Structures are given as structure tokens and as C-alpha cells.
């Protein structure tokens, strides 16, 4: 699995870099200390040699014996030279032919001390002042034991580094596999859920971690999907029923009529029936097409004044019915100017008004537009037959016709089209109704 390997790699590399950094740091600090220590030793040694050489006759014999006892050992491989005031070597203990250059000797005299590296040898020089003159003592040696210790340290560090890396890889591999196990399980479970078994859900363990939340969200999504598939199926079966019913009536009437010779009146009646049914079909088709087409493209949006739109809707749909427009508008025009697809909103409000008029039982319809700092709302109120409580949530479903509405003409799509359009525009649509007393359709427009 890619994420698993990636996690492992990242973690191991990070760890390696960190460890490497630490080990390198320790190594260099230790090395620096070693060199410092050795330098001190060399300096002491130079001092002692000088003292031994020059003070032999100056110190009391027991003090001299003390010194010899304290610093008897020479440093392995050391080269010591003492130069007198005229830069002549006066002390040579070993048989190695090595002389320091005049330049260096003078540097010691001018700075008082000197230290440097000559390949793997550390060199220290001091100025030793004695009553017999200013002597320059130079000593060089190889820190054999120190260097050996450092090499040992390096080997140990390398070993630890590599083995730590290996252990990290192994443990990391194990841990990342365990961490990703729930996701692998999820993937297996999801594969089982296909469109034919959308009623399946993933097991929710009730935990609070991210994986549990992911599983819950996924289940929610499945729920929505299942519902929308159901709605689709329902819509298709409703639509076919609605379309087929008038067709049945048309085909039936015509076939029967053609079976035998009929009177002119009979033919007329049949033709009228058929014409009526086809008009019904046409209306249905138009509504279905509109329902399918109701989508908004942002470039279709315009700023629409709701008071103007409401009047246009009334003028269009309420030519022969008493409809009163009541406006409670604040002075700020922006509170009742709405950015929307004008045509769709016209249709949506129009359908609501058409319904209100249809079910108004001959009584007047009020359209109340309110716009102030708290809300912008349009209420279309009729005083007619009203809607039963149990029907209230169903009226926006396509093809639904409430029981008390059945004897009125209509297809049952107008409200679902309005609802869809309002939803696309974030307009909240609520219904308040009392059977026999009337209905309020309340549209609340988002304010910005």
C-alpha cells in the first residue's frame, strides 16, 4: 500500500537524519575535547621538560624528585626541543632529526605560546623564562590513544546507527500496517456496497477517532444516495403513470369509436374528449420539461426588485381574480433586491400564486411583501380550502395531489417546480394552513 510505505519511509528517514545529527554532534564535540586535553598535556609536558632541563640545579633536590615522580612519563612519539635565546637547540633527547624553523621559534617568542597541527601531530610551543635566558620549548606528538579511542567511538556509533535504522524499519513497518488496517477494512466493506445493494452500511464502532468519523460520514452519504435513488425511481414511475393515463384514454376512445359507424354527435364528442386529453398531456409535458430544465447558470443571474416582480406575476396570472398586493418595505432598496434567475423566480412565484388562486374557493388572495433589517419575506395567503396536516409535507412532491384537491384541475407538478427553484436560490419555503380556512405560503429570501 502506497501510503503505508510512504509513511514508513518518511518516518525512517526523519529518524535517520535526527540520529545522524545527534551522533555527529557527539563525535565532533568529543573530538574537540580530546584535542583540547592533549594540548593541555603537551603544554604541561613542555613545561616539565623545560623545568627539568633548566631548573635541575635551581630547585631543591626533594622538589626536583617530586617533579620527576609526578611527570616521569614521556608521551609516546614525542619530539621535544628547547631553543636558547639565539635559537640554538640545547635539548635533544631523541634521535629523530627534526628541527623547527626559525619563523616558528620567533612566533613563539612574540606570542608567548603557539599551537598547531602538523599532519597527525599536535604541536605546542611555549616561552619559558629562566634566569639563564628566554627559552623556547617546542613539543609535538601524536595522540595515539585519543585517536584510537575516537576510531572506536566512530565504529560503535556506526553500528548503533545502522542497527537502529533496521529496528525502526521493522517496527515502523509493523506499526504502519496496523494503523492502516481499518482503512483497508473500510475499502473491503465499501466494495461490497454497490448500486444494487445500497441498503448496506459500514459497521460503526461508535469510536471517536478519525476513522470512525469517516465511516459515519460515509454511511450518511449512502443514506442520501439510497434516498435519492428511491426518489428517482418513484418519480419515473409517477411520470409514466401520469403520461400513460391520458394516452390510454385517447387510444381507447379512438379505437372504440372506430369499431363501428357512429353518429356525428358521437364523433364530435370523441374528438372533444381526445382534444382535452391531449391538452392535458401537453401541459404535463411542459411542466416536466420545466422541472428538468430548472438549473441556474451563474451568468443568468440578475438583480431583481421583488416588488416589481410580484406585480408582474400578479399581472400575468391573476387577470381574472381578486389579488391584493400589500407592501411593507423599508427605504433601503437593497433589502428587497434579489440576485437570481429572473425567469425561474417568475415561474416559481407564479406557480404558488396560481395554486393560491385555484384553491381560494372564490375568495381573494393576498400577497404580502415585507422587507426590513430582520427579514425579507413574501407571503401568499389564500382563504380557501386549506391543506391537511398530513399532506403538508407531501405537496411539494412531483405528481402529488392532496385528497381535497383532486376535484380541481391540475397535474401536481407546479409546486415541486417552485420548491426546486426556491431551493436552488436558497429561499426558504414554509407552509401554514388550516383546512377550510386557508393557506399561507411563506417564502423567506436570504439577506446579504
Amino acid at each position, binding site marked *: 500500500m502506497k501510503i503505508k510505505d510512504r509513511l514508513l519511509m518518511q518516518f525512517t528517514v526523519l529518524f535517520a537524519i535526527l540520529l545522524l545529527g545527534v551522533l555527529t554532534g557527539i563525535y565532533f564535540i568529543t573530538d574537540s575535547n580530546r584535542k583540547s586535553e592533549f594540548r593541555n598535556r603537551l603544554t604541561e609536558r613542555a613545561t616539565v621538560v623545560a623545568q627539568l632541563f633548566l631548573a635541575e640545579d635551581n630547585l631543591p633536590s626533594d622538589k626536583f624528585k617530586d617533579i620527576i615522580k609526578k611527570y616521569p612519563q614521556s608521551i609516546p612519539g614525542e619530539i621535544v626541543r628547547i631553543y636558547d635565546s639565539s635559537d640554538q637547540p640545547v635539548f635533544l633527547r631523541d634521535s629523530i632529526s627534526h628541527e623547527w624553523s626559525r619563523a616558528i621559534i620567533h612566533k613563539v617568542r612574540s606570542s608567548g605560546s603557539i599551537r598547531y597541527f602538523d599532519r597527525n601531530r599536535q604541536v605546542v610551543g611555549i616561552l619559558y623564562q629562566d634566569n639563564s635566558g628566554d627559552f623556547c620549548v617546542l613539543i609535538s606528538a601524536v595522540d595515539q590513544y585519543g585517536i584510537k579511542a575516537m576510531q572506536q567511538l566512530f565504529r560503535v556509533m556506526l553500528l548503533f546507527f545502522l542497527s537502529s535504522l533496521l529496528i525502526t524499519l521493522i517496527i515502523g513497518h509493523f506499526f504502519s500496517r496496523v494503523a492502516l488496517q481499518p482503512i483497508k477494512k473500510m475499502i473491503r466493506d465499501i466494495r461490497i456496497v454497490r448500486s444494487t445493494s445500497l441498503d448496506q452500511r459500514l459497521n460503526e464502532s461508535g469510536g471517536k477517532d478519525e476513522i470512525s468519523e469517516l465511516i459515519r460520514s460515509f454511511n450518511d452519504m449512502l443514506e442520501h444516495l439510497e434516498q435519492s435513488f428511491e426518489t428517482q425511481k418513484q418519480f419515473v414511475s409517477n411520470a409514466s403513470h401520469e403520461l400513460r393515463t391520458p394516452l390510454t384514454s385517447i387510444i381507447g376512445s379512438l379505437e372504440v369509436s372506430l369499431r363501428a359507424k357512429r353518429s356525428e354527435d358521437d364523433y364530435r364528442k370523441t374528438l372533444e374528449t381526445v382534444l382535452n386529453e391531449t391538452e392535458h398531456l401537453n401541459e404535463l409535458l*411542459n411542466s416536466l420539461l420545466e422541472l428538468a430544465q430548472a438549473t441556474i447558470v451563474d451568468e443568468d443571474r440578475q438583480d431583481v426588485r421583488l416588488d416589481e416582480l410580484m*406585480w408582474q406575476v400578479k399581472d400575468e396570472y391573476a387577470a381574472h381574480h381578486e389579488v391584493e398586493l400589500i407592501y411593507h418595505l423599508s427605504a433601503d432598496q437593497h433589502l428587497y433586491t434579489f440576485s437570481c434567475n429572473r425567469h425561474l423566480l*417568475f415561474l416559481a412565484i*407564479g406557480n404558488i400564486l396560481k395554486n393560491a388562486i385555484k384553491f381560494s374557493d372564490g375568495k381573494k388572495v393576498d400577497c404580502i411583501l415585507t422587507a426590513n433589517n430582520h427579514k425579507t419575506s413574501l407571503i401568499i395567503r389564500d382563504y380557501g380550502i386549506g391543506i391537511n396536516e398530513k399532506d403538508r409535507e407531501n405537496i411539494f412532491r412531483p405528481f402529488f395531489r392532496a385528497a381535497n384537491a383532486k376535484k380541481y384541475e391540475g397535474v401536481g407538478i407546479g409546486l415541486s417546480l417552485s420548491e426546486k427553484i426556491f431551493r436552488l436560490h436558497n429561499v426558504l419555503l414554509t407552509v401554514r394552513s388550516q383546512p377550510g380556512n386557508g393557506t399561507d405560503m411563506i417564502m423567506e429570501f436570504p439577506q446579504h
Partner: protein
Amino acid sequence: MNILLVEDELKVADFIRKGLKEQLYDVTVAYDGLTGERLALENDYDVVVMDVILPQRNGLEVCKELRRLKPELPVLLLTALGTMQDKMAGFDCGADDYLVKPFHFEELIARLRVLTRRKTLIAPGTIYRVADLEVDGYKKKVTRNKKEIQLTAKEFALLEVLVIHKNRVLSRTKIAEMVWGIDFNRGTNLIDVYINYLRSKIDKGFEQQLIHTVIGMGYTLKEP
């Protein structure tokens, strides 16, 4: 009355021809756009009834040509394409009226009557003025503040009506009748859309607004 019908569906062409003949109109039928255009330009018809979806050349193209070469010939588009955009495209090409299929035959007859009646002769030199707006009814040119404004055929027709009746409030029904023919109220708000178009071309960017909505009554073009 001489009618040219351009329709490629045989059954539809047949019943329209039959119905119109019974109304004592003379009907010639063309079954594709190219033939229809040729016939319209070569002969004298009182009105052209044309479908949009046609073989050879579609109805909108033909309409544009006819508007260019024979501007006084009324064209009625008769088509199954019924969305708002389709209607506006039709009017933008210069159609005088737009009837969506399926239609009521009565309505077709009524609209044809309106189209053939509406041949008002505008004398050359008739220029209507409101503030800095100038509308030349004969040349079909519009300028505001000396700048020329491009309008489609329907936009011009609407502006002309508003300007001729300036300072009077015209109801939507009246506008529909005068600009589009009778009984345009079909649940669309075409009039409002065109008023908006007009506003954005005539009023936008200018100091004084000329076209006003009088809520509850209608629209008016007012001298500021």
C-alpha cells in the same frame, strides 16, 4: 391573403394548409429553408409562417435574411422550441411573432390577422424625441446623447411604442398587444425581459432614467 408556409413535417404542413385554406387564405408550402427563402424573396406574400428546425437552412437564418432584404414582410415563427432563450433568439433574428407547438389553431388565425393588419406606414422624417433620446421611426435608428444605440427588431418595436405614447403609463397587456400581438400572456415574462434589455441599452450609463415601472399599473417612458 397570401401566406407562405415553411414546414418540413408533412402532417403538420397538411393540416395547417387545410385549416388556412378554409379561412380563404392562399397557401404556398415550402419544405426546406432554402426553398422558403427563395420563394419569399421572389414572390409577394402577406405573411410568412416558418418553422425553426428546417433542412438546408434553419428558420432563424432565413428570418435574418428576410429582415434584411424585405423588412416589411411579417414573419411568424412556429416551432416546438419553446424555452425563453429560443423565443429571444427568434425575436433577435427579426421575427414578428413566435408561436410554440403544439398550438391552438384559433390562436394561429388570430395572430396572422394581427400581423397582416399591422402595416402602419411611417412617413420618412418622423423622429421622436425624449430628452436626449432620438428615435427615427423610418430609418429604425436610435441615438442617445448623439451616440448610436444598436437595438434588435423587437427591442426597437418596444421602444417605438413607449416613445409614441410617452408620459403615458402602458399596461403590460397593452404592450403585449401592441408589440407582440394579442394575448401574449402565457406564463412567461417576455415583456419584462425586453423592458430590462431596453433599460440596459437606453438607460444604463446615462444620468437620467427614462423607462420607469409603475407598480400596479405598467411601464412608461417619461420626460425627466
